């Protein structure tokens, strides 16, 4: 399912979280919303999910107007930054929740739910922990349970808010590769929010760099990395050395003299 964000603005009091943001996510794409905290990326994700309503602008799913659709009707899978697992339910019940709240006529039978949950537990490699409570799991395990819970209802759109933000470095590396493989298997359209450049560059098909409620640049990892469109993107994407100097007769002169790159245009 494709997602289109069309001229969306959102204010919280006087603070402009998003100003006139437009974005297209193609069906089956894995897109990263990258930016520092306060750049509006989480707000954008929540607006796509229907957890927040935009002040102006439209959200289209598969070309159909979805701005006024309720959260429940949008059928998106949402993975929260702190997982938001139901603390009073076991891992099994957490994953089964989305299936058990379906209206009676479309709700699968007990056996079917069981099979579905166990196949998801297998997918996240936590079969032996089905009767644990979230409080008894490690961060990485909770993250995977949260993903399985979102996937149980077979959403066509998967939205992830800082999916690896609270994990330690090693688990984070494993999980993001696993997420990439998972995305390729389930054929969903995925959008994830991150402030980690490396994560975005490694996992995403396309990166949307955000700053102060606006999109600075969007493109493939190679594009944004090699051809940053603005000084912000250039600065945010990596550890860079900034040289200042004057250009005179084809040579930059600062502390030392550098020849201009051949294909460089001013």
């Amino acid at each position, binding site marked *: 399912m494709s997602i289109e964000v069309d001229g969306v603005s959102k204010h*919280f*009091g006087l*603070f402009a*979280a998003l100003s006139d943001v437009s974005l297209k996510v193609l069906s089956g794409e894995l897109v990263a919303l990258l930016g520092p*905290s*306060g750049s*509006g990326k*989480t*707000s954008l994700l*929540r607006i796509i*999910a*229907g*957890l927040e309503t935009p002040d102006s602008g439209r959200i289209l799913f598969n070309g159909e107007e979805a701005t006024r659709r309720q*959260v*429940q009707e*949008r*059928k*998106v*899978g*949402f993975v*929260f*930054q*702190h*997982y*938001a*697992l*139901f*603390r*009073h339910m076991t891992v099994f019940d957490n994953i089964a*929740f*989305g299936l058990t*709240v*379906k209206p009676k006529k479309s709700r699968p039978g007990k056996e079917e739910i069981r099979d579905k949950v166990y196949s998801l537990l297998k997918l996240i490699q936590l079969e032996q922990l089905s009767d644990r409570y979230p*409080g008894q799991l490690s*961060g990485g395990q*909770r993250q995977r349970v949260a993903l399985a*819970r*979102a996937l*149980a*209802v077979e959403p066509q759109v998967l939205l992830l808010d*800082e999916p690896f*933000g*609270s*994990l330690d470095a090693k688990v984070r590396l494993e999980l993001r590769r696993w997420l990439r493989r998972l995305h390729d298997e389930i054929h969903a359209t995925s959008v994830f929010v991150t402030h980690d450049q490396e994560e975005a560059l490694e996992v995403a098909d396309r990166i949307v760099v955000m700053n102060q409620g606006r999109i600075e640049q969007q493109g493939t990892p190679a594009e944004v990395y090699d051809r940053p469109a603005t000084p912000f993107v250039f600065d945010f994407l990596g550890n860079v050395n900034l040289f200042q100097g004057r250009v005179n007769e084809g040579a930059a002169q600062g502390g030392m003299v550098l020849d201009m790159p051949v294909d460089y245009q001013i």
Partner: protein
Amino acid sequence: MVMHKNGDSNSSSVSEPAWVRCLLITTALGFLALFLLLPLAAVFVEALDKGWQAYLAALQEPDTLAAIWLTLLTAVCCVPANLFFGVVAAWAIAKFSFPGKSLLITLIDLPFSVSPVVSGLIYVLIFGLQGWFGPWLQAHGIKIIFAVPGIVLATVFVTFPFVARELIPLMESQGRDEEEAALTLGASGLQTFFRVTFPNIKWGILYGVILCNARAMGEFGAVSVVSGHVRGSTNTIPLQVEILYNEYSYAAAFAVASLLALLALVTLAIKTVAEWKIRQVLSAAEAKPETEREPCYER
């Protein structure tokens, strides 16, 4: 602070000397025994002064039975009303932001800061014969003051904050994440409340209900103003105790009072269990892996 020569364990090097600790503990326990346990024991000793037969007979007096019945009726009306209001108010305050929120929080606390006598008087001024609606009510033959409805109204007012006050901090600490997760998974509002919110706050609800019930049954001041003290018809247990005492039937007065004391003990026991459970829930909430949260305007 006392430094130990050998640099003992940390805890002893920063704690008070033994005699100070003993003194503090003895003072606290002594105070407790003198002002709480002694009167409580006295109630039961006086109540049983003339033996079990007299105790049971005192409780079976028609006027006393009527008082017990009225007290139960009042509690049965008040507790569900305040339970409903408390959950709704706590839900609104903890999960949404809206204009007038801090005013609502202040208003919820009002019954705690107003003297109960004033709380009763308010209803006399509104519904009494000389009050705003008095003439109209009399013309239509409706009796509120000096009748059961007045007692219920005054008690509802006094016990208004218990459930809400208990739930607001509990629900605020739990945040909205779990409810939002349930919504994205397709749950309706009611499903979200009964399957996600309620299990997380049920011990808080029990705690609030238990305190609300204890106060509803034990309230004296506000009820005294609106009841009119009609024997066998508008006397609750506390009022009945006062009447019996003023008539010098000490044994009967203490027998009836012992019912309230028993209620207090049961309340205390349930309250302790509920507090313990709430602490478990709260520590589970804090156990979530901590990283810097996004600033709140991002939410």
